[in-house]
């Protein structure tokens, strides 16, 4: 008897859930778009059409909804089914690997630069001669392997020091006072000296948790690499010299010694902690990128008047003309193994995204992207606008050379060394070893 009761209970639960699921899908566009894809798959089995379909494995979870919406618009206009799937954070490579093995593999995926391309180049369709390449504003955004163009950068991002102007003024400075590393150091140390009186610190915590440490092991480490490449006149290397590692140390020291918390506590801070400190007006500077704009402004905590992004000065090169760190680590690749008509459909889709009114508008306004294509629309993203203004004023953007870092392993080892250094359990020499020797080791592994 009791068993029957349980069964009845289960059934009742099932039915309620089914009803609820029905409600949710009718009122939700994500569900609608996936449903549409499902339906089309069903119909294509019954009657194969030559139209082809698009399956985009998206990298950025923040823009998932926007891509779903854009895909729905495209499907509505052209009848071509577009499925967008977003990989969970940190799972992109895993998901891509597992999806590529399936019969219905992604037709459009992305790699993060030359190192990422090396693994997937056997799957990349050669884009040479496709219309989308003609739309690029600069050839530097085409990812090449020999003569073949295998990837195309679709979003440009910038990072630097996000500054809370209101707090900076409270401390008696403006962003015009910071034009070099020496200025930055002076301001930061002055704020630290008056920390109790002012009620805020210079920098948000440089958290070394994996959610946050990429800001230092990857983005900050880009600067010494950039200046070294510039000196040597190269684009990548198998053996980094570490010419500017002292400057790297100086800026990192500045971050950790003028922060909201003691350097020893940094190991316990996450990306969320750092952002929340900035949102709570606990610090003036926050090293991060244009993608943070939405997070900082969405609930009205800050308006454009409160914020600015200034270059990360490390005391090298022509600081007066240094711009933000601008580049891309998001390249679209088209799957060569996909059926002919799907490849064509995919090429049409990305071309439409970067040229059509709806596409460019969605990418600029909804996703907050700046796209390196001629038809790009003005972005509402403050940091992006600042980057454009600086470039227009003759400042030279720092390119993203971290895409040439030899491996994830290299970054992780550097991150561990930085963490230990900040916590006082390791020395700067260990960081140098991880940087220079680790580079050579990992580059050798890649070659063999």
């Amino acid at each position, binding site marked *: 008897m009791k068993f029957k009761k349980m069964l009845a209970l289960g059934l009742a639960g099932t039915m309620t859930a089914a009803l609820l699921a029905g409600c949710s899908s009718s009122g939700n566009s994500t569900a609608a778009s996936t449903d549409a894809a499902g339906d089309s798959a069903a119909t294509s089995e019954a009657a194969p059409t030559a139209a082809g379909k698009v399956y985009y494995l998206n990298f950025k979870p923040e823009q998932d909804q926007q891509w779903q919406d854009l895909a729905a618009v495209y499907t509505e206009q052209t009848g071509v089914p577009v499925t967008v799937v977003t990989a969970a954070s940190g799972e992109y490579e895993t998901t891509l*690997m597992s999806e590529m093995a399936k019969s219905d593999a992604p037709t459009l995926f992305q790699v993060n630069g030359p190192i990422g391309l090396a*693994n997937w180049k056997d799957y990349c369709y050669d884009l040479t001669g496709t219309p989308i390449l003609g739309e690029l504003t600069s050839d530097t955004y085409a990812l090449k392997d020999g003569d073949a163009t295998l990837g195309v950068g679709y979003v440009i991002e910038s990072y630097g020091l996000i500054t809370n102007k209101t707090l900076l003024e409270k401390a008696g400075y403006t962003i015009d006072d910071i034009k070099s590393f020496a200025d930055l150091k002076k301001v930061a140390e002055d704020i630290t000296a008056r920390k109790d009186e002012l009620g805020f610190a210079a920098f948000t915590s440089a958290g070394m948790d*994996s959610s946050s440490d990429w800001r230092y092991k990857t983005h900050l480490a880009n600067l010494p690499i950039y200046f070294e490449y510039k000196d040597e006149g190269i684009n990548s290397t198998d053996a980094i010299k570490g010419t500017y590692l002292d400057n790297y140390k100086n800026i990192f020291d500045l971050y950790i010694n003028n922060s909201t918390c003691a350097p020893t506590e940094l190991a316990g801070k996450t990306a969320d902690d750092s952002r929340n400190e900035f949102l709570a007006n606990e610090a003036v500077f926050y090293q991060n990128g244009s993608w943070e704009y939405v997070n900082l402004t969405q609930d009205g905590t800050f308006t454009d008047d409160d914020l600015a992004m200034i270059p990360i000065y490390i005391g090298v090169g022509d600081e007066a003309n240094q711009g933000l760190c601008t580049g891309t680590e998001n390249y679209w690749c088209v799957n060569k193994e996909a059926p002919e008509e799907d490849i064509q459909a995919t090429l049409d889709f990305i071309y439409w995204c970067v040229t059509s009114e709806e596409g460019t508008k969605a990418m600029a306004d909804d996703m907050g992207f700046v796209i390196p294509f001629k038809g790009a629309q003005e972005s509402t993203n403050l940091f992006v606008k600042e980057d454009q203004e600086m470039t227009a004023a003759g400042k030279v953007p720092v390119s993203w050379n971290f895409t040439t870092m030899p491996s994830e392993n290299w970054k992780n080892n550097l991150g561990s060394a930085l963490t230990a250094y900040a916590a006082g359990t390791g020395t700067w020499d260990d960081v140098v070893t991880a940087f220079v020797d680790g580079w050579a080791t990992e580059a050798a592994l890649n070659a063999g």
Partner: protein
Amino acid sequence: MEKAIKKYWPVFVLPTLLAFIIGFIWPFLWGIGLSFCQFTTVKNVTFVGIQNYIKIWADTTFLHAFWFTAAFTIVATVLINVLGFLLALLLTRHVKGTNVFRTVYFMPNLIGGVVLGYIWNTLLNGVLTLLEKPLLQLNATYGFWGLIILMCWQQIGYMMIIYIAGLQNVPPDLIEAARIDGATARQVLFRVKIPMVMPSITICTFLTLTNSFKLFDQNLSLTGGEPAKATQMLAYNIYDTFYARSGAQWKGIGQAKAVVFFLAVVVIALVQLRLTRSKEVQQ
């Protein structure tokens, strides 16, 4: 009757057998085959002999994962069983509220590994921050003990239930007789109760042993193998090699690792079976 049933084999056995072939036998054999090959998808398979098996040992993360898993398995098995047994002893004393306690202690078992990992990640990181210590993801030692705490929290209740059943099956007369013979509480415990619940102990040890050795979900969501793969256990290491490492050689190596892992589990199971058998003969 046997003959009559035999005629019905397509009804009784065939569905299970077919599913078995699809879901287990074929993938298993294919998996063994692929461990001798280099491949990224099934389209580009090339035979490379035992190279993958040789390369496993050049990958330091695998050996590290092996020892990490071994250490974890031993500590977790001992802790879970000792604590589970202790709780079972206390709960068979007719203490007030026994039912409530039993219900609560068992509950964590029903929550999935991934979810549990996130719950404990939040809690433990909060505690570590209060103590001004590095987070779980940054220190392998904390990561290790975090996993142990999580496993204990999840598994103790389950083992406790089995031990309670075992203890309740000990005839009260036997204990009474021992008491009358002047046995102390300790002697009753070690000479009467523990030998009598030996079957439960065997089962629980086996369950905790295999559960800990094959642990994946909790590992993934609690530490994610951080820092720098130092808290990666075998199952996760294989998954990571297979899906997350980029480069054509890694899939074959991952599959080879899986075969080695499988053999290790078989060895544990066989040893366990042998021990169980010998105990059963004695009784």
